């Protein structure tokens, strides 16, 4: 086995085991910690796919910000009333849907005739990324800032509730 394969299988195993940990552990805080593990492993997969910038973004935003937000909300709502991330009555239906999706997509991935590695792929340079973002994607970029603005204002208003002036 080449070292690329070893790394891929290791990172993939960490991703899947982390994700299973999120689902199977009964304590919500533990499941958030497992989520961090799974998301960091996804950053490792991004590095394997030579998307270094995205790996850094993944660690910054998912490994840092989003999971912190999730842990904060557990802290702010009294999860003691519900520390266990219990499965609801939809469990059999959920298992059926997830299983059906898994079987279908794996079958589709295996039966399709994908081209192999057609040419040497280099790492996407950061500067090229910046150029593409500000030249070809300038409008979505501005819209993204609007989305963030709306999210910020909306979340502040929602979190305030009725209190305040």
């Amino acid at each position, binding site marked *: 086995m080449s070292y690329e394969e070893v*790394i891929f299988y290791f990172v993939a195993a960490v991703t899947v085991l982390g994700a299973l940990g999120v689902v199977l552990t009964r304590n919500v805080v533990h499941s958030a910690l497992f989520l961090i593990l799974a998301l960091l492993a996804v950053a490792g997969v991004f590095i394997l796919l030579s998307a270094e910038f995205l790996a850094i973004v993944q660690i910054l935003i998912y490994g840092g910000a989003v999971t912190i937000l999730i842990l904060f909300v557990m802290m*702010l709502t009294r999860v003691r009333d519900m520390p266990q991330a219990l499965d609801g009555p939809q469990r059999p239906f959920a298992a059926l849907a997830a299983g059906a999706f898994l079987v279908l997509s794996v079958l589709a991935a295996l039966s399709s005739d994908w081209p192999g590695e057609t040419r040497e792929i280099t790492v996407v340079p950061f500067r090229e990324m*910046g150029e593409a973002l500000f030249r070809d994607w300038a409008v979505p970029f*501005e819209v993204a800032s609007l989305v963030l603005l709306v999210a910020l204002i909306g979340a502040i208003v929602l*979190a305030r509730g009725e209190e305040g002036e």
Partner: protein
Amino acid sequence: MLSDWGHVGFLLLLALVFPVGGIASSWMLGLLKIRPQAPDPIKEDIFECGVETEGTAWVQFNFRYYYYALLFVIFDVEAVFLYPWAVSLDEASVTGFIAVVTFIVILTIGLAYAWRKKALEWL
């Protein structure tokens, strides 16, 4: 390219081996009766020094903490967008500059709103 990340992998390995090795060696020395074991209620405390712990960690904190997490997330995303701009500054030229300034101005409106709504203050 991928091999450059070997250093990062090595660092990760080191970061894993160091704490795990410490715990494992302490445990093994305990098994071999080399490490003395004298339990004491004070030593078993969560913080051996400092204020005595009281109650559980599962209390409800003030929701105002959420504002800080929220602002952190939004401006973390902003920082991510500024990074590729900073790297490609000379190629991005005036168009890129205008795009980024617009971006920052739009998000500053959000900051001003948060300020105005006293989300930055601890009331």
